[in-house]
């Protein structure tokens, strides 16, 4: 599974052991509410992707170099068999969820969304008041790089 994940998101290669466990836990959690049939199909697909290349290329998927892995997954992604395409879609979605679901990964790509919105961006989010300000409170100081201000 990890060799598949690294082929889908190369950045996953930088994960440490704890990071991998976290990614796998997120995937497991996402599958928890899915029908057992779907989980079985995904496991089968992972097994087929790992062992299938042994017959044709003489190597398991996880033993191949990244270029060959990419080639194999591209073939599956554009397979003439809709079930295979669908299976790969599901697998890819789970890997992306496990990886981009991690807060450190979101930060590393520069994702900055914050419930504090404009105020948080400008770094002047003040105390922990729960009051929602009226719209005039949201008017940024024009001397700062506010919305449309070229930040």
């Amino acid at each position, binding site marked *: 599974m990890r060799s598949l994940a690294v082929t889908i998101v190369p950045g996953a290669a930088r994960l440490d052991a704890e990071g991998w466990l976290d990614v796998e836990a997120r995937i497991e959690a996402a599958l928890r*509410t899915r029908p057992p049939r779907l989980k079985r199909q995904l496991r089968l697909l992972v097994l087929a992707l790992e062992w299938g290349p042994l017959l044709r290329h003489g190597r398991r998927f996880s033993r191949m170099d990244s270029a060959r892995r990419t080639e194999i997954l591209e073939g599956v992604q554009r397979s003439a068999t809709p079930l295979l395409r669908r299976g790969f879609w599901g697998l890819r979605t789970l890997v992306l969820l496990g990886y981009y*679901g991690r807060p450190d990964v979101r930060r590393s790509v520069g994702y900055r*969304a914050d*419930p504090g919105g404009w105020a948080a961006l400008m770094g002047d989010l003040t105390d922990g008041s*729960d009051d*929602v300000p009226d719209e005039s409170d949201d008017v940024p100081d024009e001397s700062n790089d506010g919305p449309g201000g070229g930040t």
Partner: protein
Amino acid sequence: MIDREYDVVIIGSGAGGGTVALGLAPLAEQGRRVLVIEQGPRLADEEFTGEEIEMAEALYADSGGFLTADGTMTLAFGRVYGGSTAVYTGTSLVPEPRVVESWAIPGLSHTDLAERCRHFAGQNNVHLLDPFEINENNTLFEAGCVRAGFEARQFPVNVKGCRGSSLCNLGCPNAAKQGTDRVQLPAAERRGVEVVSRAEATRIEEKLVVVRVSAAPAGGKGGPPEWEPGEYRVRAGTVVVAGGALGSPALLQHSGFGERLPRLGEGFTCHPAFILVGEHSREITNDVGHPKSYYVDRAVEEGYVLETCMYFPFVTAKSLIGFGATNESFLRAFPRLQMILVLACDRATAGNRVAVDSGGRPVVHYRFTDEVVRALAAGTRASARIFFGAGAERVHVPLASPPELRATEASEIDERIRPEHFLAGTVPVSAAHLMGGCGMGSSAGDSVTDSWGRVHGHSWLRVADSSLFPDSLRINPYLTIMALADRAAEAIREDLLR
């Protein structure tokens, strides 16, 4: 099985159910018993954290990953107090006369719908954002439209006290979005309407709803249900089905109404959409500020609508075609990304329908018609021009091979972006405007309900949600849903006061 008795039971608390609830509040004040049941949980304000994965799990059916039967399209819809009004961006448009007139439903006029839409626009504080509230993801779209020759229009949105978190689709963390969870439902509850969360209608019989109330799962978001967990038999003089374009037709079919209503489940449309991203050379304000300020309406001319949008890392990654280094390189450019949503204005088509499995769960059969694929391709070409007009250096385009165009290749847009590159199950298509399945019309031969949402042959049973649309609306549907639900509420009031 526990027995309960009400005058009216409303199934669902979204744009339809929430509106009916408030519309019937005067009856509740007069002592009539009105109940809303909502399958999802009711969250406390502090539970809206804006965290992508946990909020998707808490607010959406199947965490936002409900798939069509063949697995080629993701359908996103809310399952929470307030339904999908808790998770949309709040764009609020009145339907075009041409659309309502093309439906040709006896007893339904555009004038009446538009008047009701304007009423709810006022109730929900719908207005245009001031220029200082609009981020660069949106201003670049507008500038790109000017340069590429498209007319960008500003979306009216239903926010009050918006801080610009950009997290609308994960439930506003600042209680600013004026969905039914913030406006209609609390007002209805204050006037005596009861709302029970975590309550699923499993079957409808003659003036009776079978309801399953579930306990809150350990560690999950949301409070406990207002009723003790268990099975209930709720009798009611009037039943209003407002479970959305998937939930309503599925529940009615599971309850056996399909035998005398051959159109039940038919006419499903959803504005199939995908996300395009363009990368600029500098950082822009994109994940701060309201995400959706402008749109381009080319529904009549070319069958598509473009909208500004901004999504979160996982959804963005999932929405890019392919995998590997190229896909990841767009994600790593997140602060420089501009996003556009291309929506195809699909039409009701034979075979595109909502069915039901043996457990009562909706099953959506949907085939992308050639018209839809052509519209997506035309919208993609237009978006590429807008991106480059706005100064983007490269654009991710799912309908090109390879799926990337650089600014130096802008002259190749028409030849590179082709409908032939659309391969269902590979191109990431999703939809959030789910419509049809209980379409209005004149008789059971051509529809499921009349223009007031009354189910043909069942005077005690009404539908009040987007499943009423006989064809796609070609805009965000929520104000129109409210208008139709308001008609249903008006008719129920008249019935009960007669």
